[in-house]
């Protein structure tokens, strides 16, 4: 026979409960102290594998280098910063798993440098629901249109803008027929729209073909392109599918001009596709602020002669997150959201790194952060406002800047 639980409180239980209540005020301050002394947590959700893998490792290094520098200078708000990095595999499923870990287990305030639009689209709802700030590279127009409540900014120009750059290239070259080949991504439609909107009125015929990026051969798709006899071709994928596409385009003996996104047409692309297939392909790339103090500083930090725009953006993400929290006097995603547009004040002291900015804020000054990727100003949707592009071309196995 089991003993039934009793609802009657015994004298011993009453004394224990009262003692616990009495001791509560003694315990609470120490709980508060523990929170204040805990590190501030920031995360990089970077692409270490998959299509974004040429850039993720450098992004992670930039994050870590800045955080080490800030910690060496004493941290912010009297607390050290702890950094977590997870690989999103350039894949939304893996990205969501990694983001859940960062948000639920690591309790981070910001997720930085999300590269692929598909990953950012999948992860952003987790961010705004948990009041975690996302500072992204991902460029699909649709991401900024999500109801993110301000928990999203990106330093990469949105994709319709990039599409217009491709259209301008077509117009300047006097192209007659522009054939656009892109994988299925959240930004495919907006890039194609940007191209059509500008090319159409100029009388340039635009044909489009959306392919499955996971395929190991795109011969039939290339045959379709060849039948259309375009004089300008867009190889518009990420690095792995660009390799497959470029090889098949070379084999098909395409004689026209080819162009694509710089993030797909990397030095590793040249290795993978081979020099013959890569030769002559143009790429369009948002220009980092190569003349800026932040750019020079990042080059020294990473011990590199040249930097791509994505590592510059990663550097800016971590600086923006830290400076926003320092300015807000609070370490949270909401604090970053509410303050990120207040640290690029034209009248403020120009700063190019977090330690100097933190010091200026502590001195009561307004600051104007000048990033390695450019001025980091965002519109109400989180889109970067000021951006410039440059044109590269692969010549003799090297990527050469043609026009900046």
């Amino acid at each position: 026979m089991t003993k039934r639980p009793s609802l009657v409180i015994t004298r011993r239980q009453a004394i224990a409960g009262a003692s616990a209540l009495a001791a509560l005020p003694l315990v609470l301050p120490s709980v508060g102290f523990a929170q204040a002394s805990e590190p501030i947590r920031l995360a990089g959700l970077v692409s270490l594998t998959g299509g974004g893998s040429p850039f993720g490792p450098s992004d992670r290094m930039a994050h870590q280098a800045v955080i080490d520098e800030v910690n060496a200078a004493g941290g912010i708000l009297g607390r050290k910063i702890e950094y977590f990095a997870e690989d999103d595999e350039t894949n939304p499923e893996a990205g969501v798993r990694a983001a859940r870990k960062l948000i639920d287990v690591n309790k981070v305030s910001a997720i930085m440098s999300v590269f692929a639009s598909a990953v950012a689209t999948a992860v952003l709802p987790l961010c705004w629901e948990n009041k975690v700030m996302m500072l992204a590279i991902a460029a699909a127009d649709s991401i900024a249109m999500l109801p993110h409540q301000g928990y999203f900014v990106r330093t990469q120009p949105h994709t319709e803008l990039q599409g217009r750059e491709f259209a301008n290239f077509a117009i300047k070259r006097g192209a007659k027929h522009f054939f656009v080949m892109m994988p299925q991504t959240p930004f495919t439609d907006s890039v194609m729209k940007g191209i059509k909107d500008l090319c159409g009125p100029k009388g340039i015929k635009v044909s489009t073909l959306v392919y499955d990026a996971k395929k190991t051969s795109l011969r039939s798709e290339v045959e379709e392109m060849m039948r259309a006899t375009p004089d300008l071709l867009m190889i518009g994928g990420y690095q792995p599918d660009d390799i497959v596409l470029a090889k098949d385009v070379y084999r098909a003996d395409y004689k026209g001009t080819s162009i694509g996104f710089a993030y797909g047409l990397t030095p590793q692309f040249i290795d993978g596709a081979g020099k013959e297939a890569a030769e002559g392909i143009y790429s369009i790339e948002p220009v980092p602020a190569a003349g800026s103090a932040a750019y020079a500083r990042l080059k020294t930090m990473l011990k590199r002669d040249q930097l791509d725009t994505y590592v510059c953006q990663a550097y800016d993400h971590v600086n923006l997150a830290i400076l926003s929290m320092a300015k807000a006097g609070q370490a949270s995603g909401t604090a970053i959201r509410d303050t990120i547009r207040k640290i690029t004040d034209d009248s403020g002291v120009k700063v190019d790194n977090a330690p100097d900015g933190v010091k200026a804020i502590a001195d009561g000054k307004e600051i104007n952060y000048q990033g390695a990727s450019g001025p980091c100003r965002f519109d109400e949707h989180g889109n970067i406002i000021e951006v410039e592009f440059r044109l590269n071309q692969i010549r003799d196995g090297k990527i050469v800047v043609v026009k900046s």
Partner: protein
Amino acid sequence: MERILQLFANGVMAGAVLALPAIGFTTIFAVLRFANFAVAGHMAVGAFAGYVVNSWLGLPAWAAVLAAFVFAASIGVATDHVALRPLRGYRALTVAIASIALNLMVENALRFGFGNAPRNFAIPLMRDLSFGPIHIDPQQIENTIIAVVAMIILFLFLSLTTTGKAMRAVADNPALADSKGIDPDRMARIAVAIGMGLGGIGGMLIGLDASIDPLIGFRSILSVFAAAVVGGLGSVPGAVLGGLVIGLAEELSLLALPSTYKAAVGFLVILITLTLRPRGLLGPRAA
């Protein structure tokens, strides 16, 4: 009409390459009765072995193909011995799930050793050959020949050698084969070696056409699985037929569907085939 012929040619050649790992997949299933998804990782092992022999050691393509088979087979037997063999007594689904875990380990080991960057074989790219309105890449022809030769050798092995006949006996009736004194463990090792070895060649041939990276097999495994299922799991001729059916279906679907639906076409073919013939086109017990 020209377009149909071109797509048909592309489909046949894609199917021939797909058939090799599909034969590997089905061979392992025939003897061990579980779906071994680690074939994907071993496709990558074969591709990297071929790459090392061709690009680093400077040996010709045939030596690279041989290396792809030998390395993928050896590593396949070793990983099977360590990771999957202890689970043989469990349900097929358990072992199949374990094979997915093994696949991740193999891919990550390659990533650790070679990195993620795509790599290219030291074989010059060639322009397409024209046969009237049809354009065919010489590399595709070479890949198809290699795939066909590998299949012929396998068929001769299974038909003419004592070991091959013993393997078929185990695949057909394991209990009867056991009563005849055929060592099931030895047959299992040979089946894994052949399966992973053929997967390795398949991975290398795909790499010759595109480029190689640790996920080369992962990207192809759904089509490989579809080919094996359509052909009839456990049937080697079925895997060849399944490879061709999937290759042709994916390419010819472009006549009616956008390219992005290519992968879905494979599964549509599975659905139709299994509805009409539940054990696949040439399944071992098909009526």
